[in-house]
């Protein structure tokens, strides 16, 4: 669903091949592993067979199979939403699959739960540390793995010593008595690792463990992974950083759209192969992208930085009638950029120009006055107010403009809400119904209606079709297309590559809080989009300058 097209043209393939050889030259260590692992194929320690899982009609996993051998490091790669996190949750029992089978050491697991999977030797290090912030490091480690005797005296000394020992193995310099809330993100991640080590797991799952680690800690982590393997245990290792995978992994499984596409020995693949496996798919939706004459620049952002949110030095501009797609991995700072632009968080630097003149946006109210509108991500939480009626939701951002006297006029409100509900095709019996009665797609239309009613000049859409069904999606695309035709400048943040490529005139790719490239639609393929988002940008840019 997310991406269209592959690196298919003959020319491209040749280039990919050429790059393959370059990559392999750079990674001689791989060759050693080929000899080291001629795939003796012992019995897998963990098998997942045809796992399926959907959330309210949205398929997260459509049939994923994975087999993990003892003493192997198995890499798991895939785009945003390919199903990696859901698969992990299924393996640990945090989520029950709709169908499929999990076997651990040949034994089928009937009803999995976090406690059961832990007792079977599975330990997980999540991307976001899941620690108790008000407890000490030692207590956190003890809580995870101590057997519970309700009335026993706590062996504080023993806990501390034990924690200190585990932390030393991770190479962390953290006092066991420190409270977790006082630790930095990487330090918390190291505590998570120590916790997992304590579990003495035979299957260690790591979900982007290096995302927040510095170089030294990363090296320590690699050492731990290698030690784990040497001890005959297995590791499932998820990461977007391919160079780590090439260093660590024995095999790799690629997920795409909730399917396991292929499992290969790491020594037999290149990063180009991986990216191609990750994106390769057909276009499934038709995008109503019309040709629009572009007008003047409506919004320009120069050297825009907000260190609190990790947004650095963003430069971009959008013209009237233009759709600028903002692509990137989850966590690359796209939403943070939008929120800072909308005045929710103060900037540390840079300037914002609306219609060519410099402006200060200190609050969402300022942004609304300047003609900006922001339809946020996670609409169930922030897009609409569930308890309020559709009519009240629609007028919420325009109250001061519609009712300058300070008194509501229900006739006017109903008229405005009805007009926009009709225009956007909100399916409801009455505009007096509370927004919580609507489906996701219709809630999104109400959120959109609220902002269109403010008569904006610049519209920021954050994941406009997240979690809504296919029919409603194409309606939303149709709407976005029409709005651009009417001269709105649109910034569209999306994790769906297909949507980005289908709707945008230009595409800005963000990685780690920065815009790493701005591309024209014609020159963009899913392949180079993903490559840039993954931070492998040099190759693509190099090719463009050829």
């Amino acid at each position, binding site marked *: 669903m997310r991406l269209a097209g592959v690196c298919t043209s003959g020319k491209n393939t040749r280039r990919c091949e050429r790059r393959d050889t370059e990559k392999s030259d750079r990674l001689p260590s791989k060759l050693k592993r080929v000899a080291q692992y001629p795939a003796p194929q012992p019995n897998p320690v963990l098998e997942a067979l045809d796992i399926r899982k959907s959330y309210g009609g949205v398929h997260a996993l459509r049939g994923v199979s994975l087999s993990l051998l003892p003493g192997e490091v198995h890499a798991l790669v895939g785009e945003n939403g390919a199903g990696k996190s859901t698969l992990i949750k299924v393996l640990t029992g945090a989520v029950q699959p709709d169908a499929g089978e999990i076997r651990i050491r040949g034994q089928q697991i009937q009803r999995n739960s976090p406690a059961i999977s832990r007792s079977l030797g599975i330990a997980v290090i999540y991307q976001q540390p899941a620690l108790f912030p008000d407890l000490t490091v030692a207590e956190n480690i003890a809580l995870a793995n101590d057997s519970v005797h309700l009335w026993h005296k706590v062996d504080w000394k023993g806990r501390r010593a034990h924690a200190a020992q585990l932390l030393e193995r991770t190479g962390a310099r953290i006092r066991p008595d420190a409270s977790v809330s006082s630790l930095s993100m990487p330090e918390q991640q190291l505590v998570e690792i120590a916790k997992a080590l304590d579990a003495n797991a035979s299957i260690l799952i790591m979900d982007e463990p290096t995302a927040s680690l510095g170089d030294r800690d990363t090296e320590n982590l690699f050492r731990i992974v290698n030690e784990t393997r040497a001890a005959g245990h297995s590791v499932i290792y998820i990461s977007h950083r391919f160079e780590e995978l090439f260093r660590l992994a024995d095999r790799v499984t690629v997920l795409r759209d909730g399917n396991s596409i292929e499992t290969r020995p790491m020594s037999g693949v290149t990063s180009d192969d991986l990216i191609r496996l990750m994106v390769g798919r057909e276009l499934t939706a038709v995008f109503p992208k019309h040709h629009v004459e572009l007008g003047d620049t409506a919004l320009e952002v120069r050297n825009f930085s907000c260190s609190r949110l990790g947004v650095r030095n963003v430069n971009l501009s959008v013209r009237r009638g233009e759709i600028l797609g903002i692509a990137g991995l989850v966590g690359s700072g796209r939403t943070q950029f939008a929120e800072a632009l909308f005045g929710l968080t103060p900037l540390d630097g840079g300037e914002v120009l609306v219609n060519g003149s410099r402006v200060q946006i200190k609050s969402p109210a300022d942004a609304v006055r300047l003609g900006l509108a922001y339809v*946020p991500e996670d609409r169930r939480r922030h897009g609409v107010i569930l308890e309020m009626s559709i009519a009240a939701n629609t007028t919420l951002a325009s109250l001061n403009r519609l009712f300058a006297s300070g008194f509501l006029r229900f006739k006017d409100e109903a008229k405005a809400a009805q007009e926009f509900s009709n225009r956007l095709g909100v399916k409801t019996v009455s505009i007096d119904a509370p927004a919580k009665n609507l489906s996701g797609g219709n809630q999104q239309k109400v959120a959109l209606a609220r902002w269109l009613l403010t008569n904006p000049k610049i519209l920021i859409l954050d994941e406009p079709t997240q979690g809504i069904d296919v029919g409603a999606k194409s309606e939303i695309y149709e709407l976005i297309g029409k709005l651009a035709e009417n001269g709105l400048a649109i910034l569209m943040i999306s994790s769906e590559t297909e949507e980005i490529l289908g709707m945008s005139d230009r595409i800005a790719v963000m990685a780690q809080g920065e815009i790493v490239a701005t591309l024209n639609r014609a020159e963009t393929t899913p392949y180079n989009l993903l490559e840039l988002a993954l931070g492998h940008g040099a190759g693509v840019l190099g090719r463009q300058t050829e």
Partner: protein
Amino acid sequence: MSLRLNREWPSLIALIGLCIFIAFAAPRFYEPGNLRDLALANASVLLVSTGMTLVIVVAQIDISVGSMFAVVSVACGVLAKLGVPILLLPVLAILIGCVFGALNGALVSFVKAPSIVVTLATMVAWREALRWITGGAWVEGLPTHFQWFGLGQGNGQALIVLASLFIFGLLWWGSENWVALRAVYATGSDTEAAKLAGISTTRVVFWVFVLIGALTGIASLLNAVRFSDVPANSGINLELEAIAAVVVGGTPITGGRGSLLGTFIGVLLLGCIGPALIFLGINPYWEKAIQGAIILLTVVLEAVGKGVGKSLAPTAALNKT
């Protein structure tokens, strides 16, 4: 919107039931004298509860109203003795209330201190400061035009009740017709979403606290003029009475919803219990126990019967599209 009941219905049914029961069991309850006393006794509770409703809707709490009430009473008495014209007293009462409310509001909204702690602190501080300043002595020897605003008992009583009803009615109407009060509901429902919709949620919270201060101020004055002296310790447990009335009226303590009409019903229901017991010949000490039971029943109904309230709402029958 206006008269559509959904969350208020349990307390309304209870109130009507109680009224019918009393009509048979103790018809003397409905004598004009008793009804007048009932209205007078509950007028100030109604005003404070009205403010409390909005505070709770915006997902905050103010437990300092009882202490504010006492301070404003004494202040009004002292001002009257100093010769401040009686017509100026309501204005001053409201202003003093606003100042206290603004202090709570500033700490809660701008400093972001939790309202339960802020108002606990101000509750204790004002009450004890008042005790220290007055030494517990009542304000006595008030000018004769203080009691009943110098209008005489009959007119004064009518003024107190009508003024309370007028202020309540104005806010009730406003809660459905004023843009500002819709912002209160939006903020209480989902602060983050309201902020994203361009509402200044910190200002909304601040002004709601100012409003409850103003209402407590005027309520305090309307109560004080019923007597010839001003006690130094009025308004004890007022915060509890107000919160109880709000909750019984169907406003969830978590905020975001709730109506002033419900609070009105809540005030009446809880206010009727005590006098009704007397007319029924039951020991009036049962009053608090019965009120407690009503509050418990409301919360339990609320927790268990979320579906019940919903199914009565006219819009719930909508199919999800």
